[in-house]
Protein backbone atom coordinates (compact mmCIF):
# COMPACT_ATOMS: atom_id res chain seq x y z
CA UNK A 1 0.00 0.00 0.00
CA UNK A 2 2.41 2.68 -1.03
CA UNK A 3 2.25 3.29 -4.74
CA UNK A 4 0.20 6.07 -6.18
CA UNK A 5 -1.82 5.54 -9.33
CA UNK A 6 -1.69 9.23 -10.04
CA UNK A 7 1.98 10.05 -9.91
CA UNK A 8 3.31 13.52 -9.31
CA UNK A 9 4.20 14.17 -12.91
CA UNK A 10 4.53 17.91 -13.02
CA UNK A 11 6.40 20.59 -11.21
CA UNK A 12 4.81 23.09 -8.88
CA UNK A 13 4.98 26.60 -10.30
CA UNK A 14 5.34 29.67 -8.13
CA UNK A 15 2.69 32.37 -8.24
CA UNK A 16 4.53 34.63 -10.68
CA UNK A 17 5.30 32.07 -13.34
CA UNK A 18 1.84 30.56 -12.94
CA UNK A 19 0.14 33.88 -13.67
CA UNK A 20 2.59 34.61 -16.48
CA UNK A 21 1.82 31.27 -18.03
CA UNK A 22 -1.90 31.87 -17.85
CA UNK A 23 -1.58 35.33 -19.33
CA UNK A 24 0.27 33.74 -22.21
CA UNK A 25 -2.65 31.36 -22.77
CA UNK A 26 -5.23 34.09 -22.35
CA UNK A 27 -3.90 37.66 -22.61
CA UNK A 28 -7.18 39.07 -21.30
CA UNK A 29 -6.61 37.41 -17.92
CA UNK A 30 -5.58 39.84 -15.21
CA UNK A 31 -3.88 39.25 -11.90
CA UNK A 32 -6.17 39.81 -8.98
CA UNK A 33 -3.85 41.28 -6.38
CA UNK A 34 -6.06 41.25 -3.27
CA UNK A 35 -5.93 37.46 -2.90
CA UNK A 36 -3.56 35.52 -0.70
CA UNK A 37 -3.07 32.83 -3.34
CA UNK A 38 -2.39 33.09 -7.07
CA UNK A 39 -5.58 34.48 -8.59
CA UNK A 40 -6.64 35.74 -11.97
CA UNK A 41 -9.69 37.52 -13.28
CA UNK A 42 -10.87 36.16 -16.60
CA UNK A 43 -13.50 37.68 -18.91
CA UNK A 44 -16.52 35.44 -19.29
CA UNK A 45 -16.05 35.00 -23.05
CA UNK A 46 -12.54 33.56 -22.62
CA UNK A 47 -13.28 31.34 -19.67
CA UNK A 48 -14.53 28.04 -21.22
CA UNK A 49 -11.51 27.85 -23.53
CA UNK A 50 -9.07 28.74 -20.77
CA UNK A 51 -10.68 26.20 -18.40
CA UNK A 52 -10.04 23.44 -20.90
CA UNK A 53 -6.43 24.63 -21.28
CA UNK A 54 -5.89 24.79 -17.52
CA UNK A 55 -7.06 21.21 -17.29
CA UNK A 56 -5.07 19.86 -20.20
CA UNK A 57 -1.83 21.90 -20.45
CA UNK A 58 1.07 19.65 -19.63
CA UNK A 59 2.68 22.05 -17.18
CA UNK A 60 -0.53 23.26 -15.50
CA UNK A 61 -2.68 20.10 -15.08
CA UNK A 62 -5.40 21.51 -12.85
CA UNK A 63 -7.13 18.18 -12.31
CA UNK A 64 -9.18 19.00 -9.20
CA UNK A 65 -11.89 21.63 -9.07
CA UNK A 66 -11.62 22.07 -5.34
CA UNK A 67 -14.61 24.32 -5.04
CA UNK A 68 -16.82 26.60 -7.04
CA UNK A 69 -18.88 29.34 -5.50
CA UNK A 70 -19.91 32.93 -6.07
CA UNK A 71 -19.79 36.35 -4.46
CA UNK A 72 -22.65 38.78 -4.87
CA UNK A 73 -21.27 42.31 -5.38
CA UNK A 74 -24.58 44.05 -5.11
CA UNK A 75 -23.15 47.56 -5.45
CA UNK A 76 -21.37 46.98 -8.75
CA UNK A 77 -24.17 44.80 -10.12
CA UNK A 78 -21.93 41.78 -10.66
CA UNK A 79 -21.92 38.23 -9.42
CA UNK A 80 -18.37 37.04 -9.28
CA UNK A 81 -17.94 33.32 -9.88
CA UNK A 82 -15.03 31.77 -8.00
CA UNK A 83 -13.25 28.62 -9.11
CA UNK A 84 -10.62 27.22 -6.74
CA UNK A 85 -8.39 24.89 -8.74
CA UNK A 86 -5.75 22.50 -7.48
CA UNK A 87 -3.32 20.40 -9.40
CA UNK A 88 -2.76 17.17 -7.54
CA UNK A 89 -0.21 16.16 -10.14
CA UNK A 90 1.89 19.34 -9.91
CA UNK A 91 0.96 20.67 -6.50
CA UNK A 92 0.00 24.26 -7.33
CA UNK A 93 -3.17 26.24 -6.85
CA UNK A 94 -5.07 28.85 -8.75
CA UNK A 95 -8.20 30.83 -8.07
CA UNK A 96 -10.13 32.10 -11.07
CA UNK A 97 -12.67 34.88 -10.84
CA UNK A 98 -15.27 35.42 -13.55
CA UNK A 99 -17.81 38.24 -13.54
CA UNK A 100 -21.38 37.75 -14.71
CA UNK A 101 -24.09 40.39 -14.74
CA UNK A 102 -26.28 40.28 -11.67
CA UNK A 103 -29.55 40.90 -13.54
CA UNK A 104 -28.85 38.25 -16.15
CA UNK A 105 -26.34 35.79 -14.71
CA UNK A 106 -25.50 33.23 -17.36
CA UNK A 107 -22.28 31.24 -17.44
CA UNK A 108 -21.08 28.18 -19.33
CA UNK A 109 -21.16 24.90 -17.45
CA UNK A 110 -17.80 23.24 -16.88
CA UNK A 111 -19.16 19.71 -16.30
CA UNK A 112 -17.33 18.50 -19.37
CA UNK A 113 -13.98 19.53 -17.90
CA UNK A 114 -14.48 18.78 -14.22
CA UNK A 115 -17.47 16.46 -13.59
CA UNK A 116 -17.83 17.62 -9.96
CA UNK A 117 -18.80 21.04 -11.36
CA UNK A 118 -22.23 19.59 -12.07
CA UNK A 119 -23.17 19.67 -8.39
CA UNK A 120 -21.14 22.68 -7.39
CA UNK A 121 -22.87 24.64 -10.15
CA UNK A 122 -26.24 23.36 -8.95
CA UNK A 123 -25.43 24.77 -5.52
CA UNK A 124 -24.55 28.17 -7.01
CA UNK A 125 -27.71 28.08 -9.11
CA UNK A 126 -29.73 27.28 -6.01
CA UNK A 127 -28.28 29.96 -3.77
CA UNK A 128 -27.30 32.69 -6.27
CA UNK A 129 -29.49 32.07 -9.29
CA UNK A 130 -26.69 31.76 -11.82
CA UNK A 131 -27.81 29.87 -14.93
CA UNK A 132 -25.34 27.51 -16.50
CA UNK A 133 -25.71 26.76 -20.18
CA UNK A 134 -25.29 23.12 -21.26
CA UNK A 135 -25.76 21.88 -17.72
CA UNK A 136 -27.27 18.36 -17.77
CA UNK A 137 -29.49 18.76 -14.72
CA UNK A 138 -29.89 22.33 -13.49
CA UNK A 139 -32.28 22.10 -10.56
CA UNK A 140 -32.32 23.42 -7.04
CA UNK A 141 -29.98 21.44 -4.83
CA UNK A 142 -30.72 22.33 -1.21
CA UNK A 143 -33.97 24.25 -1.28
CA UNK A 144 -37.44 23.14 -2.31
CA UNK A 145 -38.20 23.40 -6.00
CA UNK A 146 -40.85 26.05 -5.42
CA UNK A 147 -38.57 28.30 -3.36
CA UNK A 148 -38.71 31.98 -4.32
CA UNK A 149 -35.48 33.95 -4.58
CA UNK A 150 -31.82 33.14 -4.08
CA UNK A 151 -30.88 33.34 -0.41
CA UNK A 152 -27.15 34.03 -0.62
CA UNK A 153 -27.74 37.15 -2.68
CA UNK A 154 -27.19 40.21 -0.59
CA UNK A 155 -30.63 41.68 -1.21
CA UNK A 156 -32.49 38.47 -0.38
CA UNK A 157 -35.27 38.99 2.11
CA UNK A 158 -38.26 36.98 3.17
CA UNK A 159 -40.75 37.27 5.98
CA UNK A 160 -39.30 34.22 7.75
CA UNK A 161 -35.75 35.33 8.55
CA UNK A 162 -35.08 36.97 11.88
CA UNK A 163 -32.65 39.83 12.40
CA UNK A 164 -30.36 39.53 15.36
CA UNK A 165 -31.39 42.24 17.85
CA UNK A 166 -28.43 44.55 18.36
Amino acid at each position, binding site marked *: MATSLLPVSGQALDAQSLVAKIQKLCPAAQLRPDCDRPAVKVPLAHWPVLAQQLFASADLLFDLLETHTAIDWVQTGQIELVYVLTSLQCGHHLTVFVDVARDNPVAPSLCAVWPIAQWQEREVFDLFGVHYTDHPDLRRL*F*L*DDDWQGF*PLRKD*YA*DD*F*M*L*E*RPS
Partner: protein
Amino acid sequence: MGLVTDNLPGALLPLPGGGALLTAIDQVVNWSRANSLWPLTFGTSCCAIEVMMATGAARHDLARFGAEVARPSPRQADLLIIAGTIVKKMAPRLRTLWEQMAEPRYVIATGSCAISGGPFLYHSYTTIRGADEVIPVDVYVPGCPPRPEALLYGLLTLQKMIREGTTLARPGEVRKPVLAALPDGMTLHQVRAEIAELVQETATVDRAAAATVGASYASASRV
Protein backbone atom coordinates in the same frame (compact mmCIF):
# COMPACT_ATOMS: atom_id res chain seq x y z
CA MET B 1 -54.87 1.39 22.41
CA GLY B 2 -57.12 -1.42 21.70
CA LEU B 3 -60.53 -2.98 21.91
CA VAL B 4 -60.16 -4.11 25.51
CA THR B 5 -58.67 -0.97 26.98
CA ASP B 6 -61.02 1.29 25.01
CA ASN B 7 -64.09 -0.48 26.39
CA LEU B 8 -62.73 -1.16 29.85
CA PRO B 9 -63.70 2.15 31.51
CA GLY B 10 -67.28 1.88 30.25
CA ALA B 11 -67.59 -1.66 31.54
CA LEU B 12 -65.87 -1.23 34.89
CA LEU B 13 -66.97 2.20 36.08
CA PRO B 14 -70.67 1.31 36.75
CA LEU B 15 -69.66 -1.69 38.88
CA PRO B 16 -69.20 -1.32 42.63
CA GLY B 17 -65.46 -0.84 43.24
CA GLY B 18 -64.90 -0.49 39.52
CA GLY B 19 -63.20 2.89 39.89
CA ALA B 20 -60.57 1.48 42.22
CA LEU B 21 -59.95 -1.46 39.93
CA LEU B 22 -59.59 0.90 36.98
CA THR B 23 -57.01 2.93 38.89
CA ALA B 24 -55.03 -0.21 39.57
CA ILE B 25 -55.19 -1.17 35.91
CA ASP B 26 -54.12 2.37 34.96
CA GLN B 27 -51.08 2.03 37.15
CA VAL B 28 -50.09 -1.24 35.54
CA VAL B 29 -50.62 0.11 32.02
CA ASN B 30 -48.71 3.32 32.70
CA TRP B 31 -45.91 1.43 34.40
CA SER B 32 -45.56 -0.82 31.37
CA ARG B 33 -45.68 2.08 28.97
CA ALA B 34 -43.09 4.06 30.88
CA ASN B 35 -40.65 1.20 31.01
CA SER B 36 -40.87 0.00 27.44
CA LEU B 37 -40.49 3.14 25.36
CA TRP B 38 -39.31 2.24 21.88
CA PRO B 39 -37.60 5.21 20.29
CA LEU B 40 -37.62 5.99 16.59
CA THR B 41 -34.13 6.44 15.15
CA PHE B 42 -34.55 10.00 14.06
CA GLY B 43 -31.35 12.02 14.04
CA THR B 44 -30.79 14.97 11.78
CA SER B 45 -27.48 16.37 13.05
CA CYS B 46 -24.96 16.57 15.89
CA CYS B 47 -27.40 15.63 18.67
CA ALA B 48 -27.89 12.24 17.00
CA ILE B 49 -24.34 11.25 17.89
CA GLU B 50 -24.74 12.17 21.52
CA VAL B 51 -28.31 11.32 22.39
CA MET B 52 -28.90 8.39 20.08
CA MET B 53 -25.59 6.69 19.50
CA ALA B 54 -23.55 7.48 22.61
CA THR B 55 -26.56 7.05 24.90
CA GLY B 56 -27.50 3.78 23.30
CA ALA B 57 -23.98 2.40 23.40
CA ALA B 58 -22.24 0.49 26.11
CA ARG B 59 -21.26 3.16 28.60
CA HIS B 60 -24.50 5.06 29.07
CA ASP B 61 -26.68 2.11 28.16
CA LEU B 62 -30.19 3.29 27.44
CA ALA B 63 -31.29 -0.32 27.96
CA ARG B 64 -31.25 0.23 31.71
CA PHE B 65 -34.47 2.20 31.26
CA GLY B 66 -36.11 -0.06 28.72
CA ALA B 67 -35.70 2.41 25.87
CA GLU B 68 -32.98 0.80 23.79
CA VAL B 69 -35.16 -0.89 21.18
CA ALA B 70 -34.58 1.75 18.52
CA ARG B 71 -36.90 1.21 15.58
CA PRO B 72 -36.26 2.52 12.10
CA SER B 73 -40.00 2.47 11.38
CA PRO B 74 -42.37 4.97 13.01
CA ARG B 75 -45.12 2.33 13.04
CA GLN B 76 -43.25 0.36 15.67
CA ALA B 77 -42.05 3.27 17.76
CA ASP B 78 -43.75 5.19 20.52
CA LEU B 79 -41.04 7.70 21.41
CA LEU B 80 -39.76 10.29 18.96
CA ILE B 81 -36.45 11.77 20.08
CA ILE B 82 -35.84 14.80 17.89
CA ALA B 83 -32.06 14.93 17.69
CA GLY B 84 -30.95 17.90 15.64
CA THR B 85 -32.00 20.89 13.62
CA ILE B 86 -35.30 20.82 11.76
CA VAL B 87 -35.30 22.84 8.55
CA LYS B 88 -38.20 23.83 6.30
CA LYS B 89 -37.62 20.94 3.91
CA MET B 90 -37.56 18.38 6.73
CA ALA B 91 -40.55 19.73 8.67
CA PRO B 92 -43.26 17.99 6.58
CA ARG B 93 -41.32 14.71 6.87
CA LEU B 94 -41.12 15.10 10.64
CA ARG B 95 -44.85 15.70 10.79
CA THR B 96 -45.49 12.61 8.64
CA LEU B 97 -43.29 10.47 10.85
CA TRP B 98 -45.06 11.66 13.95
CA GLU B 99 -48.47 11.03 12.44
CA GLN B 100 -47.45 7.52 11.45
CA MET B 101 -46.65 6.64 15.05
CA ALA B 102 -49.39 4.87 16.99
CA GLU B 103 -50.95 6.42 20.10
CA PRO B 104 -49.85 6.82 22.79
CA ARG B 105 -46.77 8.55 21.41
CA TYR B 106 -44.29 10.77 23.16
CA VAL B 107 -41.83 13.35 21.91
CA ILE B 108 -38.55 14.47 23.46
CA ALA B 109 -36.89 17.48 21.81
CA THR B 110 -33.17 17.43 22.48
CA GLY B 111 -30.76 20.25 21.95
CA SER B 112 -31.00 23.95 21.28
CA CYS B 113 -32.00 23.54 17.63
CA ALA B 114 -35.00 21.34 18.36
CA ILE B 115 -36.04 23.66 21.19
CA SER B 116 -35.62 27.07 19.60
CA GLY B 117 -33.45 26.94 16.49
CA GLY B 118 -30.36 27.35 18.63
CA PRO B 119 -27.31 28.84 16.92
CA PHE B 120 -29.24 29.03 13.66
CA LEU B 121 -32.03 31.20 15.04
CA TYR B 122 -31.00 34.48 13.40
CA HIS B 123 -30.39 35.10 9.72
CA SER B 124 -31.17 31.52 8.75
CA TYR B 125 -33.65 31.28 5.92
CA THR B 126 -34.51 27.63 6.52
CA THR B 127 -34.18 26.69 10.20
CA ILE B 128 -37.47 26.04 12.00
CA ARG B 129 -37.45 27.73 15.40
CA GLY B 130 -38.16 24.72 17.52
CA ALA B 131 -39.66 21.36 16.67
CA ASP B 132 -42.79 22.32 18.61
CA GLU B 133 -43.78 24.49 15.66
CA VAL B 134 -44.31 21.21 13.80
CA ILE B 135 -45.38 18.63 16.38
CA PRO B 136 -46.27 18.76 20.08
CA VAL B 137 -43.33 18.11 22.38
CA ASP B 138 -43.52 16.50 25.81
CA VAL B 139 -40.04 16.97 27.22
CA TYR B 140 -37.33 19.46 26.27
CA VAL B 141 -33.74 18.51 26.97
CA PRO B 142 -31.44 21.54 26.63
CA GLY B 143 -27.82 21.40 25.54
CA CYS B 144 -25.82 21.85 22.36
CA PRO B 145 -25.70 18.92 22.14
CA PRO B 146 -27.01 17.55 25.46
CA ARG B 147 -24.82 15.03 27.20
CA PRO B 148 -26.06 11.44 27.30
CA GLU B 149 -26.81 11.94 30.99
CA ALA B 150 -29.05 14.86 30.10
CA LEU B 151 -31.08 12.65 27.77
CA LEU B 152 -31.34 10.00 30.50
CA TYR B 153 -32.62 12.71 32.83
CA GLY B 154 -35.13 13.74 30.18
CA LEU B 155 -36.19 10.14 29.70
CA LEU B 156 -36.72 9.71 33.43
CA THR B 157 -38.79 12.89 33.42
CA LEU B 158 -40.91 11.48 30.62
CA GLN B 159 -41.33 8.19 32.43
CA LYS B 160 -42.52 10.07 35.48
CA MET B 161 -44.98 11.98 33.31
CA ILE B 162 -46.30 8.76 31.84
CA ARG B 163 -46.69 7.09 35.21
CA GLU B 164 -48.66 10.04 36.53
CA GLY B 165 -50.23 10.84 33.21
CA THR B 166 -53.14 9.71 31.09
CA THR B 167 -55.64 7.25 32.39
CA LEU B 168 -57.83 4.88 30.47
CA ALA B 169 -60.92 6.85 31.47
CA ARG B 170 -59.47 10.02 29.90
CA PRO B 171 -57.38 8.90 26.96
CA GLY B 172 -55.52 11.34 24.75
CA GLU B 173 -55.34 13.98 27.43
CA VAL B 174 -53.29 16.97 26.42
CA ARG B 175 -50.00 16.83 28.29
CA LYS B 176 -48.14 19.85 29.53
CA PRO B 177 -44.61 20.05 28.17
CA VAL B 178 -41.77 19.90 30.65
CA LEU B 179 -38.26 21.31 30.51
CA ALA B 180 -35.87 18.62 31.70
CA ALA B 181 -33.00 21.00 32.44
CA LEU B 182 -30.83 20.08 35.35
CA PRO B 183 -31.86 22.17 38.37
CA ASP B 184 -29.53 25.00 39.32
CA GLY B 185 -26.55 23.88 41.33
CA MET B 186 -26.96 20.25 40.34
CA THR B 187 -23.75 18.68 39.15
CA LEU B 188 -23.09 15.93 36.73
CA HIS B 189 -21.86 13.71 39.52
CA GLN B 190 -25.16 14.04 41.34
CA VAL B 191 -27.02 12.98 38.21
CA ARG B 192 -24.73 10.02 37.77
CA ALA B 193 -25.17 9.08 41.43
CA GLU B 194 -28.94 9.36 41.12
CA ILE B 195 -28.98 7.17 38.04
CA ALA B 196 -26.71 4.65 39.75
CA GLU B 197 -29.06 4.62 42.73
CA LEU B 198 -32.06 4.08 40.49
CA VAL B 199 -30.37 1.21 38.78
CA GLN B 200 -29.38 -0.26 42.12
CA GLU B 201 -33.00 -0.16 43.31
CA THR B 202 -34.35 -2.08 40.37
CA ALA B 203 -31.30 -4.22 39.69
CA THR B 204 -31.93 -7.81 38.85
CA VAL B 205 -28.35 -8.71 38.04
CA ASP B 206 -25.72 -10.06 40.35
CA ARG B 207 -23.68 -6.88 40.63
CA ALA B 208 -20.76 -8.51 42.37
CA ALA B 209 -20.37 -11.00 39.58
CA ALA B 210 -20.87 -8.30 36.94
CA ALA B 211 -18.18 -6.18 38.57
CA THR B 212 -15.52 -8.84 38.11
CA VAL B 213 -16.44 -9.29 34.47
CA GLY B 214 -16.39 -5.58 33.77
CA ALA B 215 -13.31 -4.82 35.84
CA SER B 216 -10.98 -4.45 32.91
CA TYR B 217 -13.26 -1.97 31.17
CA ALA B 218 -14.00 -0.05 34.35
CA SER B 219 -10.32 0.60 34.88
CA ALA B 220 -9.95 1.70 31.30
CA SER B 221 -12.91 4.04 31.33
CA ARG B 222 -11.66 5.75 34.46
CA VAL B 223 -8.47 7.07 32.86
